[in-house]
């Protein structure tokens, strides 16, 4: 009896669906407004179903996409640097501009490991000697200076980050062109200080701080951060706070900058010191 009821219900349900579908098909084919409405509903459903799937697929491909973007970013940085240098060279009417643009080589890399809570913080990158990374290369990101490569393995590179009291970067402050060493303040992940400024230095909070280009690690004019408050230290030097553009707590992708003339410059330096 119960089985008969179930089959009767199923037949009724099937006929109900059949009739409703027939009505919908008729309505869909005969009425423009309903036709548009059905199509819109259908598109919405399709977008929901397949759009969700596409988002999921993109999510799985994210790593690959990130690497592509990273490589493109490095290429663009290299080109940008070349343009900047070319412009600078023209301004100075220096005919070696073409040569200068090829001084630096850029290698994109991903941060494998990075310490942030220690006094001496380090960074490990997923590119090593096989990728052309050499020790004493600079590490930058799209937001500024990150650190310096200290040691290189076949597939990995170990470096010191700016969040390290032992590391300092030559910085140029705002429009004053004042150059002084910049180092980590030892407290925050996005704060640094510029030390050894002359006491009469007139600090303008909000000025951009850039790399000076006087070191062999970093090209000139890479933005590092903006100036904050300043104070006199021991009555003899002035110290300026810098809010870094790069927050180390969110760092993931970097670019290794290799100075191709490094060996030549260091050899020249050594020779000069030897003469003295």
């Amino acid at each position: 009896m119960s089985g008969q009821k179930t089959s009767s219900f199923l037949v009724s349900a099937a006929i109900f669906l059949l009739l409703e579908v027939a009505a919908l098909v008729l309505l869909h084919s005969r009425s423009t407004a309903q036709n548009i409405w059905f199509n819109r509903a259908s598109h919405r459903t399709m977008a929901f179903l397949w759009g969700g799937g596409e988002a999921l697929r993109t999510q799985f491909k994210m790593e690959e996409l990130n690497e592509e973007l990273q490589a493109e970013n490095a290429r663009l940085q290299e080109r940008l640097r070349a343009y900047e240098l070319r412009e600078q060279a023209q301004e100075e009417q220096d005919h070696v501009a073409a040569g200068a643009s090829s001084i630096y080589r850029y290698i994109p890399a991903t941060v494998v490991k990075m310490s942030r809570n220690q006094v001496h913080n380090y960074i490990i990158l997923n590119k090593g000697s096989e990728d052309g990374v050499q020790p004493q290369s600079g590490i930058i990101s799209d937001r500024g200076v990150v650190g310096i490569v200290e040691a290189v393995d076949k597939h990995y590179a170990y470096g010191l980050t700016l969040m390290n009291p032992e590391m300092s970067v030559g910085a140029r402050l705002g429009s004053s062109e004042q150059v002084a060493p910049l180092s980590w303040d030892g407290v925050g992940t996005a704060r640094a200080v510029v030390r050894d400024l002359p006491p009469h230095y007139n600090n303008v909070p909000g000025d951009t701080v850039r790399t000076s280009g006087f070191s062999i690690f970093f090209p000139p004019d890479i933005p590092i951060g903006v100036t904050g408050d300043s104070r006199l230290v021991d009555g003899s030097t002035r110290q300026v706070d810098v809010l870094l553009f790069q927050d180390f707590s969110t760092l993931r992708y970097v670019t290794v900058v290799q100075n191709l003339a490094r060996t030549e410059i260091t050899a020249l330096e050594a020779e000069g010191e030897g003469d003295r």
Partner: protein
Amino acid sequence: MKASTLKFILLFAAQLILWNYCNFSQYLIIVFLPAMLLCLPIDRGVIRVMILAFLLGLAADFFETGQLGLTSLALVPVAAIRRWVIQLVFGNELLARGEDLSFRRQGLAKFVTSILILTSVFLLIYLWVDSAGMYPLGFLALKYGISLLVSTVVSLAIAFLLLEESVAKWN
């Protein structure tokens, strides 16, 4: 042709004429087709009533609305739940005995309830699909409320007309 069948056809024609000529307001649509389905003999199976509803809907759309399938779409669910509504409102006994509906025996309140349920289902589907997403919800809600109220009152009169024979019988 049986008198009840003729009455049914005439009332159906009346529904078409009402839709065609009596456009009182854009906020009102008077429908008594659900009530007509309710008043069909109780022993009619669900499938038969659904097919009849589909054909009635098609005829109504063919002669009147021009949107072939719209009335069928709204009327078939009414036919599908008809038996369940009768069971819910009038009780199992009626179905078990196979008695026809009667105003005298079942009372006005039960008719109001059952017609209200069936008409509300019809109007819900009909207005929603008919609007095709072009009208604001407030407008549709107002139209739904007014139409349900007026249609229920008219449907009661129609049901009374259709079940007149039964009333005489119970007398």
